[in-house]
C-alpha cells in the first residue's frame, strides 16, 4: 500500500520527475479513471468521502468547497480552477518541494479537479521567486499538451482543459484566494468582500475554485485509490498524509510527508533530529508565521486541524518555526509583524495603519526604547486588529496570532523590554 503518495516519486537528488517516469509509476491513472469512467458528481462524491481538507492553512473540506460550484448550465460560460502556488507564508516550503520535484502530480490533480467542477480553464498562480518551479511546471505543461492530457478532447473524451502558468508579481496577500483572483485579473491584489464567494463569482466574475498545491496533489491519488485508502493514511480524525516541515535551530531542518496527526514531538525530535547542541526549545509556531505559539506542554499533541485548534493555535501550513532560548520572542514577533505590516494590501484601516503601529512599538521595545504603557497598547492593538470581522480579510488577525500568544507564553520577555531594557538576543539598531 502506498503510504507516501505525495512524495513517492521524488528522487533522492531532487531532480525533476519526467512524464515518462511519472506515467510508469502509475501517473495519470487517477485522471484517466475519473475522466473516462466517472461523472463529475461521482468524482466529487469520492473527494467528499475522502475527508480531504485544504492544505493551504484554513483546512476547509475540499469536497464541500467544490460542491458550491454551480453545476447547472443555467449560466453558460467559463469556470476556472486556480492552483494557489503563491507560497509566501513565513517558514513554509512544502509546495516548493512538490512542484520542483514532481510537477506532473500537481497537473494531474488539477486535471481531475477541473473535470470535477467542469472548469475549462485552469491557472497555476506561482510565487514569482520560485524560478525553478516555474521551469519544471512549464516543461511539464508542455509535455501534457503533447501527450493529450491537456488541450482539446482529453484522453479521447469530449472534455477539454487549458492550463496556464502565471508567475506572481509578488505579494504575500496574493495567497488570499480573492486577492489572488484580483491579481490574476491584473487588478490591485486586494482581497474581495465575501459573500459572494469565488465558487460563485470568482475570476472574471465566474465560478472559480482556488486550491493549494498540496491539496491538489492529493486529488489524483484519492480518485485512483479510493477514499477509504486515503482515510486510512491519517492517524487521527483527519485523513491522508501531510507535508510537515521544521525550520529553526534544529539538527535537521526540512520537510517530510507523514501521516496527518503525527505528534509534534515526533516531527521535531525524530524527523528534525531535535534542537541543535547549545539550544533549547522554548516554543514553536505550528503552521507558519501567522499561527499562535505553542510551547513545551503541547509537544505531544497530534498535528491535525482539530487538535491544534483546540490548543489555541492553527495547524496552518503544517510547517513549524521553532523558537529557541537564544532568540528573543519580542524580536521574533517584531520581525514577523514587520513582514505583515509591509505585506498589508492597504485596503482596510486596522491592517494598513494598525500593523505599522504594532511594528513601531515592537521596534522601540526591541531596541531598548520600550515604555511601560507598551504592553497595554499592544494588548489593545491585538484586541482591535486580531479578530476576524474587524478587518477585511484574515491577514491582520493572522499577523496578531504570534504576538498575542507570545505575550501569553513569554510575558517576562515583554515586561523586560517594556522597562526600556535591551536583551542579548535582539538586534539593537
Amino acid at each position: 500500500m502506498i503510504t507516501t503518495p505525495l512524495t513517492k516519486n521524488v528522487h533522492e537528488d531532487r531532480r525533476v520527475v519526467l512524464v515518462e517516469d511519472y506515467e510508469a509509476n502509475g501517473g495519470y491513472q487517477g485522471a484517466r479513471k475519473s475522466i473516462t469512467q466517472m461523472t463529475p458528481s461521482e468524482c466529487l462524491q469520492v473527494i467528499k468521502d475522502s475527508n480531504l481538507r485544504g492544505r493551504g492553512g484554513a483546512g476547509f473540506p475540499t469536497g464541500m468547497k467544490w460542491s458550491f460550484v454551480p453545476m447547472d448550465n443555467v449560466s453558460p460560460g467559463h469556470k476556472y480552477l486556480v492552483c494557489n502556488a503563491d507560497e509566501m507564508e513565513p517558514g513554509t516550503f512544502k509546495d516548493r518541494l512538490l512542484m520542483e520535484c514532481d510537477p506532473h502530480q500537481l497537473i494531474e490533480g488539477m486535471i481531475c479537479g477541473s473535470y470535477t467542477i467542469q472548469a475549462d480553464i485552469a491557472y497555476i498562480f506561482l510565487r514569482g521567486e520560485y524560478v525553478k518551479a516555474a521551469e519544471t511546471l512549464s516543461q511539464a505543461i508542455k509535455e501534457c499538451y503533447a501527450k493529450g492530457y491537456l488541450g482539446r478532447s482529453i484522453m479521447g473524451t469530449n472534455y477539454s482543459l487549458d492550463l496556464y502558468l502565471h508567475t506572481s508579481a509578488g505579494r504575500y496577500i496574493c495567497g488570499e484566494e480573492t486577492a489572488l483572483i484580483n491579481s490574476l485579473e491584473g487588478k490591485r491584489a486586494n482581497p474581495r468582500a465575501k459573500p459572494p464567494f469565488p465558487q460563485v463569482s470568482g475570476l472574471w466574475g465566474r465560478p472559480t475554485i482556488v486550491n493549494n498545491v498540496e491539496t491538489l496533489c492529493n486529488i489524483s491519488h484519492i480518485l485512483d485509490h479510493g477514499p477509504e485508502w486515503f482515510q486510512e493514511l491519517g492517524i487521527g480524525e483527519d485523513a491522508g498524509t501531510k507535508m510537515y516541515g521544521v525550520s529553526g535551530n534544529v539538527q535537521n531542518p526540512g520537510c517530510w510527508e507523514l501521516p496527518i496527526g503525527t505528534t509534534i514531538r515526533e516531527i521535531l525530535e525524530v524527523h528534525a533530529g531535535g534542537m541543535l547542541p547549545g539550544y533549547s526549545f522554548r516554543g514553536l509556531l505550528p503552521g507558519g508565521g501567522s499561527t499562535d505559539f505553542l510551547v513545551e506542554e503541547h509537544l505531544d499533541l497530534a498535528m491535525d486541524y482539530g487538535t491544534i485548534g483546540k490548543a489555541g493555535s492553527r495547524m496552518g501550513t503544517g510547517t513549524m518555526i521553532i523558537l529557541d532560548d537564544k532568540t528573543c520572542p519580542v524580536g521574533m514577533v517584531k520581525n514577523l509583524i514587520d513582514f505583515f505590516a509591509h505585506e498589508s494590501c492597504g485596503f482596510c484601516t486596522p491592517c494598513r495603519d494598525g500593523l505599522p503601529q504594532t511594528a513601531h512599538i515592537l521596534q522601540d521595545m526591541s531596541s531598548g526604547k520600550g515604555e511601560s504603557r507598551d504592553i497595554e497598547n499592544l494588548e489593545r492593538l491585538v484586541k482591535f486588529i486580531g479578530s476576524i470581522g474587524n478587518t477585511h480579510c484574515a491577514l491582520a488577525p493572522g499577523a496578531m496570532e504570534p504576538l498575542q500568544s507570545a505575550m501569553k507564553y513569554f510575558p517576562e520577555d515583554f515586561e523586560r523590554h517594556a522597562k526600556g531594557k535591551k536583551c542579548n538576543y535582539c538586534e539593537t539598531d
Partner: protein
Amino acid sequence: MPTIVIDGKEYEVPQGENILEACLGLGLDLPYFCWHPAMGSIGSCRQCAVIQYQNPEDERGKLVMGCMTPVQDGARFSITNEAASSFREFIIESLMVNHPHDCPVCAEGGECHLQDMTVMAGHRDRRYRGLKKTHRNQYLGPLIHHEMNRCITCYRCVRFYKDYAGGSDLSAMASHDHVYFGRHEDGKLESPFSGNLVEVCPTGVFTDKHLVNDYTRKWDLQSAPSICPGCSVGCNTSPGERYGKLKRVHNRYNPDINGYFLCDKGRFGATYVNSEKRIPAVGRRSKDGLFDAIDSSQALTDIAKGLSTSKVIGIGSPRTSIETNFALQNLVGQQNFCTGISETETALVSACIEAIKESGAKIPSPREIERCDAILILGEDVTNTATRIALSLRQAVRNEAFNMAEGLQLQSWQDAATRMLVQDERSPLFLASPHATQLDDIAEGIFNLSPSNIAHLGYSVASLIEGKKDDAAKKTDANDYGNIAEALLKAERPLIISGTGVTDTSVIKAASSITSALVAKGKETYLSLIYQEANTLGITLLDQGQGPSLSNIFEQGENNSIQTLIIVENDLYRRAAKHKVDKLLQAADQVIVLDILDNETCNQADIVIPASSFAECEGTLINFEGRAQRHFPVFESKHPCRPSWEWLTEIGKISSNKNMLEWQCFDDINKACSESSSTLTGINEVAPDRKYRVGGRKIPRQPHRYSGRTAMVANLSVHEPKQTDDTETPLGFTMEGHSGDRPGELIPFVWAPGWNSNHSVHKLQTGSEGELKGGRSVVKIESKKLIQSKQQVKSVNQNNDQDHFIAVAMYKIFGTGELSSQSPGIIELCESESIELAIEAADKLGVSNGDGVTAHGVNGTVDLEVKINDSLISNCVGIIQGMPGAANINPGEGLSLTRSENWVRRSEIISSDQLGGKNV
C-alpha cells in the same frame, strides 16, 4: 418594511438598505468614510462598526460593519455598545497616525468630514509615538490642488474617478501604509468630473485650487441656491461668496438632476463673475471710440426717449433668464424681439420641440436616464454639450450589472462585489458621431458617420423597429443596425439621445421616428434632446416663433430700417458671421448692449450697461427637459451693476410701457410672464416668492459662524455694518433666520450639528439618494403646448463634392461656453481656435498639427490652425464651436480647404516651462 432594533429601540427601515444608510436615514449618527450614498459600500475604512446580536439571548454580539450588513427583519444592533464605540475610536486613531495636524491651514478645515468623524468617534489621545509618513504632492492641473499627506486611504477618490465616472488617469498606487492616490505623472486630471473629488474626498487631499489660492472658510461663505448656467442640464449648485467675490461652487443636492455630482464646467466655470472683464460702469462711446462712464439715469432716459421715436429691435439671449428676456420682449414688443439664437440653431430647436410633440416619448431627468437600459445616441457629443448627462449614462449602462447582481442576491450597494461579478458586462449603448467621443469606452457599438449618415442610421433603425424592410435598411448595415433595433426593443426603458449639437435637423427627425416606432410597439420610451445653452428651450418657448429671426434682423439692418438695437447678454459675434454682425451694428443708429463681461459686441455699442451675473440676481431657467428652476442672488450686485430685467423694467417705466409700469420687483415680472401665455404657466411656482417666511423668518444665506464678521471692515470702522435687507427673495443676507426643513429650492448650503461637511446633506434627506425632507417644487414646462410657426430655413450651401469637406460642429467642455471660458483655471484649459482634420485630409493638404489652413466657405475665408483628429471621418472637418471665428463657418456647409502659406506656427511649448510658474 423590515423592523430592526438599534440600542433597544425599534425602527422600521427600508428593505434592501444596509445598516449604515438605515442609521443615517433614521437621523442616528454613525461615523463612516468609504461609503458614499451614490457609490455604495466596499467595507474598507471599518469606521461604521456596530454590534450585531445573533439572537434574543445574545448579549455579547459580534462586531460588523454597518455598510456591509443588510437590514433584516428582527435584527438587533447596537451603536453605543462599548466594544463598537471603542473600535470606532481606534479606527480614527489609526487614520490619524499619519494625518498632519494642519487643520488651521487646510482648505478643508471647517467642512471636513474627517474632523467631524474624529469628534464623533471620540478620539483624543494619540498613542503612536513614531513619525508621520509623508508624500510628494502632484500638479493635477489648474482646477484641483493635491495634498497627499492628508489622505486617510478611504479609496473614495478612485472609486468615484474610475468606477463611477470612468476616468483612467487617477489610481491607487503602492500598498500597505504607502498607498498613494494620484496620477502616474504630474498633469491635469483628464476627467470632466474631476472636480467632484473635492467633495468626494472626506478630507483635504483634493481641494478646489481656486478656493485654496483665495481662501475662505465655509463658515464665512455666503451662499444661495443656484442653477448652473453652463449648459442645458440645469444642475443645482450652491455658489459661495465672500467680500464680493465668488469663491467656489459646490453641488446642491437635487435627486432628479445632479444628485451628488457636478461637471467641472459647472464647478469651476462660474468664477468669471469675478473677472476683470466685468463691465465696470454705464458707458457711452465718445467720438474717439472710447467709452465714458456716464450716470445711469441719464443713459436710461436717453434710451427710453429713443424707444418712443424709432424702430427698435431687441435681441435677447439663451444664456440668461426667462425674466430678462420677457422684460426685453415687453419693452420692444413681441414682433421686435429676437431670441438671439442663430438661424441654424433655431431650426434645430424647433425640430427638437416637434420631435417631442410627435414622438409621444417621455423626457427623462438625468436620474431617469440612469434607469434606462438601452441607449442610442445620435450625433450629440453629450460629454461636451451636457456633461452631467454623460455621468448619468455611465450609470445607466450599469443596469445590466444590477440585474446580474440581483441573480446572486447582491444588493446594489455592494459595489465592489457587483463590479467583480459583472466585469465588463454593460447594458447596451450605441453611439453615432462624426468623431470619437468620451463615451466610446462604454459603448457596445460605435458608428463614425457624417451627420447625414447618422440620420440615415436613425431612419434605418426606426424601420427595423417597425418591422419594415425598406431601402433605408440596406443589407450592408442591416446586421449592425439590427443589433441596435433589437437592443432597444428588448429593453424595458429604451432611451434615444440627440440634440442640436450635431446641427442637422434630419438627425433629430430620425431620433423622433425611432422613438415613435418604439412607442408604437408599446415601449416605455425616453427621448432626451440636448440644447446648447442654459435657457435655449426657455427663450424658444417665450418667443413661440413669433419674433424675427437673426437673419431677418440682418436684412432689416441692410435696409436701414433699425434705429435702435438693444442687445441683452449676447455676443452676436458668436452667433453669426463677422461681416453680417459688423454690418448690422453699423447700420443701427444706436446700439445698446447690456452684458456681464466685455466682448466684441460691447465694443461696437453706443451705450453699454453692466448687468448682474447669475450669482447676483434672481432668474428662472428652463432646462433640456422643460424643467423650470430658479437661481437666487448669492450676493448683492456691485454698484452700478443691476440685473438686466431691472434695467429693462426701468427703461420701460420711463417710457411709460403700460405692461411694465406695474412691475415692482422680480416676482411681478415672473408672475406677468407666467400669465402671458399658457406655455409658461407655472414658472411662478418654481420657488417660493419674496414673501415666503417660516415662523416669520427668512432663510439665511450665511451659516452660523464664529469668526467675527465685524473684522471684515475693521480697517474702516469697528462698528458692524448693517446687513442689507433682501426685499426681492425669501433669503436674507444674514446668518439669522430659519434653518430647519425648507423647500429644496431654498437650501443655500448644507449643515447640521456635528456635520459641517457636505455629508450633512443626509440630515436633509428622507434616505440616501432620497427626497428632501422639506419637499421640492417640480415645474415642468410642457413644450407640447407650444404652437410654433414653421421656421423657414434656407438650406445651407452644401458643396458635398470631392474637393469639399463638410464642416461639423465640435464642442469642448472648456471653451465652447461663452462665459465659463472666462473663468480663471478654465482659461488655461481652453484650446486655441483650430480646425480638426482627419489624417487623410491633412495628408492631402500637406499639413500637420500646428500648420494653418484657409477655409473657404459661404462667409468668405478664414485661417485656422490644424489639429489632427484621427477619429474624424475623412470627408468632415471639425469646427470647435464658441471659439472666435467659429461663427464664420456654418456647420453643415461645404468648405474648400487650402494650405495657408503665410501661416506662422506658434512656438513650441515645453511642458516643464508651463509648470514653472504654476501654483502646484
